[in-house]
């Protein structure tokens, strides 16, 4: 085990796979511009390249390279930059395997940060996860710890499908214990971050940590919250969530996206359909307020869900419990 910042753990995952598999490529804007760049030095310019600011071509080239047998990782920096090339992400990469009747594979990773609520105002702060999770053929990964960042990246690279790897920018320097050597985290297996019998809280990315903070506060009031981190939202491990709800009977979903663009809403629908009889109280969603993320610090904090709103939501679902 080594103590690594989240961002270094992602790099460790990419290194792990580039070392073992010569078909892995890594490229994007503003990287690999000198021979000293750590990936250039290790793997050379055949596999590691800087691109112009051309997201459509970058992602499109990744698709073509993947169809031709390689495993590209595209460094996109910010999830919003995928919006520039949304056709390639949503209507090209995940379609080819299907439309070809299973003839081609498109193994690629789109690595993008999101949720940078640190004064980046309206266009670089979005939580776009739900935009991608409903696209058949795409997988969507949202690590919340350094260990998962490494292991999920490695699994994403080995996966034979296009994977959107969304890392939360506020976790960038967050340190964590990361296993040395080969480390893989399976897709579709949620992690129970904290056990408890009174209420289930589901959150992804940075919100996992806000939920854990809330759980600590609630424990002081005698409320035991179970905190679940799905880790991948496509595939989504609904079983772990339903099992928890069977135990607690109460569900609070936390999501950094605005109200009607959340993963939370999709989980709420699934739990309502498959676990209605387990519920002792209505499902509550704690989401961002319905607006563009504002620049000014107190306004930004007002819009994004925080520990206090999570605690209040939990108290609400537990009101009058028997």
């Amino acid at each position, binding site marked *: 085990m080594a103590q690594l910042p989240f961002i270094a753990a992602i790099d460790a995952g990419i290194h792990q796979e580039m070392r073992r598999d010569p078909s892995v*490529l890594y490229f994007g804007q503003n990287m690999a511009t000198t021979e000293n760049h750590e990936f250039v030095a290790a793997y050379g310019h*055949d*596999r590691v*390249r800087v*691109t*112009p600011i*051309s997201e*459509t*071509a*970058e*992602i*499109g*080239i*990744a*698709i*073509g*390279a*993947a*169809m*031709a*047998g*390689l495993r*590209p990782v595209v460094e996109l920096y910010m999830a919003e930059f995928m919006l520039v090339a949304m*056709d*390639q992400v949503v*209507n*090209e990469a995940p379609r*080819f*395997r*299907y*439309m*070809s*009747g*299973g*003839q*081609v*594979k*498109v*193994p690629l990773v789109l690595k993008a940060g999101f949720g940078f609520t640190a004064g980046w105002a309206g266009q670089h702060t979005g939580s776009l996860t739900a935009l991608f999770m409903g696209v*058949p*053929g795409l*997988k969507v990964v949202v690590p919340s710890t350094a260990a998962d960042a490494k292991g999920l990246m490695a699994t994403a690279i080995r996966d*034979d*499908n296009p994977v959107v790897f969304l890392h939360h920018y506020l976790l960038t320097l967050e340190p964590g214990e990361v296993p040395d050597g080969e480390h893989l985290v399976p897709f579709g297996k949620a992690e129970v971050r904290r056990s408890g019998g009174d209420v289930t809280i589901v959150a992804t990315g940075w919100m996992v940590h806000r939920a854990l903070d809330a759980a600590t506060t609630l424990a002081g009031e005698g409320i035991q919250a179970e905190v679940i981190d799905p880790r991948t939202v496509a595939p989504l491990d609904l079983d772990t969530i339903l099992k928890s709800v069977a135990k607690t009977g109460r569900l609070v979903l936390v999501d950094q996206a605005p109200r009607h663009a959340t993963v939370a809403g999709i989980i709420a629908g699934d739990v309502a359909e498959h676990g209605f009889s387990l519920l002792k109280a209505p499902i509550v969603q704690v989401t961002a307020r319905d607006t563009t993320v504002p620049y000014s610090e107190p306004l930004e904090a007002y819009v994004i869900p925080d520990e206090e709103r999570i605690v209040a939501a939990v108290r609400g679902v537990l009101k009058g419990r028997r």
Partner: protein
Amino acid sequence: MSVQAPNAERQVWIYTQMLRIREFEERVKRSFTDHPGVIRGHTHLADGAEASIVGSLSHFRQGDAALATYRCHGYPLVLGSDPKAMMAEIYGRADGLCKGLGGSMHLTDVKHGFLGTSGIVGAGIPHAAGAAWAAQIRKKGEVVFSFFGDGASKQGAFHETLNIASLWKLPVVFVMENNGYNVVTTTAQEDANAAAGEPLAIKAKAYSMPGVTIDGGDPLAVFATVGAAIERARSGGGPTLVESKIYRLSAHGNIIAPPGVPLHYPEHEAIAVFGRREEYEAALRGDPVPRFRGTLVKSGVLSSGKADEIAAQVAKEMQAAVDFALKSPFPKLESALEDVYA
């Protein structure tokens, strides 16, 4: 770089392939009247582009790849795909090339190097460049053929990709089939170069790569020009933009209509939209398929008798494709849920 002209045998092969495309697509078109309802959605024909397609793909070798657009029936026929499986795909049947999941716009045949077709204009151009990056890394002299239309050259994907392909010297040849129309918009109405009376190949200059304009109705001209571009790409010289000027002899596609309305091919836009019957009739007179037959007969490469024999064989082959496709069953319903993920 000059390319040796194809020998007599190869010229006959080129003619045969052109005719195979024409006869296959004639049957696609005829299916709307002969077998109403059998073809759904949208189909697009390459009649008028046969010389360009075959002249280009004459240079295809094992290990190369080709990618194209929704107007994609011609390429796989030349590369060796089974017309029976292709027609079954267009009819949405279980024996289809893509199991009935793709249809007319998305023919793919990986085993024959036909890697993929995007139905979104211009979107497949970067895919070709990506495959070319893979070829560059493999260092076996393999190249990628990227086929698209004049309309695609107005897309960002085209410009972004040509820039990178030139910068990285990727082994790819961009064959722009300029058929003069983006659906119902003429090239001069949407392209600054065309409006200024310049060839569309001039766009290559912006990306410091060679750009050549050729008569795409002449398979030997296409053979020579694309051949030189392919050699350049194989030897590490980087990409070339070839503007292959052709005339699409059918309308953009069959009519777009909701279920219940019988589909058919309308009149060409030159007549239906612009009232330019003479332009269209001149294009018909220059039809590359009979034109090349005439060239071969005149030069003595092919006798009229032999040409008729080829025509009869090809007609039989393509009719067999229709008969096969009509008999092929629909896919099992569960197959709609397979192949979503690898």
